[in-house]
């Protein structure tokens, strides 16, 4: 039996196609799906107002390989005003034709099935190609993720549908309703991609992080991950702590004075934000909550040296040598420290800890500086992470464990 593939098109277009006598309806579905899919995953329509998305013709022809069939399908959609084309094309300027769903047909996406073997084979082959590169270091994790990561689709859909209906009840403006539906379509496609096994797993060579369908999933949807009894293991105040690890490897700083010891003590015990909050109040008489302090700290660590001067001076009054060191690190290029810290994080979390979890045959998912594991493995995982910290940095930070589902 041939495999069917799910594609997603606006329900108003689906209603039209049901009545249409067009011969190759699946070609129409492929084109409409691709216009939505590229708009959503290329992340260009951030006003949620249904704008044109440039799509080179070979993207469509890669799946509908017969030139005449492709042209017939595209002409049908344009002639019947189901989709719009901006008519702007320039090879010299690198501008492909822009497409969008016609506003009259813009509506919630619904699932339709495509079963023509020439189309499904091509779609499956494209999904496999994009995940074909494997690095030995995370081969086991990648294989586990691609074979197991799944979502409780119906429950997830119920949740986003309820949210959409509640929001629509309180909105009268057509423009705002458009945006709500478009936002819904974004969540719908994220859930549908996972449900269809259209998973991505990419290593980023600039910062060493691994990006997956999980890492950019909205936190409120994590409860619908199909693997049950998951807990999330986090490094408490991970960013200040990773800076601590860099500072520790700098002999001139760690032998200096009590300043470094204080920073090390606060970050290792997981009380950095709380203690800084107290010092900030002492220095300025102003109180900030934990979230504001966290954001402030990111500004101090990662912004250009000539911005957030006042905030940096407060940090300087508590940690003068460390502030001087941070500024020196960012002197030439302000992003160097941030990239260095992302690399330390990814090297430790992926290359060191995950390899150790693999050796112990423990399954896991990662979200950059956190791991999702089975509740029954949580103590073993905590011990392994702590042991990795000891072996690598001779230091153990505080770890926090939270229930996911």
């Amino acid at each position, binding site marked *: 039996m041939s495999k069917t593939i799910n594609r997603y098109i606006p329900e108003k277009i689906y209603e039209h196609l049901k009545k249409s006598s067009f011969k190759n309806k699946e070609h129409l579905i492929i084109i409409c799906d691709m216009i939505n899919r*590229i708009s*959503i*995953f*290329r*992340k*260009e*329509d*951030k*006003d949620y*107002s249904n704008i044109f998305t*440039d799509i*080179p013709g070979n993207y469509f022809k890669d799946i509908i390989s017969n030139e005449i069939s492709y042209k017939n399908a595209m002409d049908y959609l344009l002639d019947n005003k189901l989709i719009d084309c901006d008519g702007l094309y320039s*090879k*010299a*300027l*690198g*501008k*492909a034709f822009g497409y969008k769903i016609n506003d009259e047909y813009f509506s919630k996406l619904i699932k339709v099935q495509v079963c023509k073997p020439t189309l499904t084979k091509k779609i499956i082959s494209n999904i496999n190609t994009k995940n074909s590169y494997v690095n030995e270091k995370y081969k086991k994790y990648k294989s586990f993720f691609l074979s197991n990561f799944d979502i409780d689709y119906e429950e997830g859909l119920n949740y986003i549908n309820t949210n959409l209906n509640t929001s629509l009840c309180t909105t009268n403006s057509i423009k705002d309703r458009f945006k709500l539906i478009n*936002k819904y379509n*974004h*969540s719908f496609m*994220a859930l549908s991609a996972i449900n269809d096994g259209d998973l*991505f797993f*990419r290593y*980023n060579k*600039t*910062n060493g*992080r691994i*990006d997956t369908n999980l*890492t*950019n999933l*909205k*936190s409120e949807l994590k409860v619908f991950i199909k693997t049950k009894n998951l807990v999330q293991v*986090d490094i408490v*105040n*991970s*960013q200040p702590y*990773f800076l601590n690890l860099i500072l520790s490897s700098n002999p001139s700083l760690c032998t200096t004075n009590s300043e470094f010891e204080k920073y090390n003590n606060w970050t290792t015990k997981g009380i950095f934000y709380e203690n800084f909050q107290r010092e900030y109040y002492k220095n300025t008489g102003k109180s900030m909550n934990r*979230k504001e302090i*966290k*954001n402030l700290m*990111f*500004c101090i660590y*990662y*912004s*250009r040296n000539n*911005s957030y001067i006042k905030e940096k001076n407060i940090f300087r009054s508590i940690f003068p040598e460390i502030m001087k060191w941070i500024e020196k690190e960012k002197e030439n290029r*302000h*992003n160097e420290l*941030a*990239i260095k*810290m*992302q690399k330390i*994080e990814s090297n430790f979390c992926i290359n060191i800890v995950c390899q150790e979890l693999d050796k112990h045959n423990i399954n896991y998912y990662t*979200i*950059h*500086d956190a791991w999702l594991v089975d509740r029954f493995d949580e103590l073993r995982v905590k011990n392994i992470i702590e042991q990795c910290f000891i072996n690598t940095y001779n230091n153990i930070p505080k770890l926090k464990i939270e229930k996911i589902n």
Partner: protein
Amino acid sequence: MKKKFKKEDDLYPIWYEGKLYTEEECDDIFICFYHTKLALNYLNGVYVGDKIWIYPDGTMEEF
């Protein structure tokens, strides 16, 4: 010289809240963490750490 068509891996410009940001217009911290479109959440934010995401205009929020 022929230019390549705009592809999924072009990082800039990037949309946020109805405004298109060039690299020069993006917040300097956002730039430090934005290296691939695959890392973006559906609002076009990128993960910093400690559960915080940053957006092209510099807004920092949990997601």
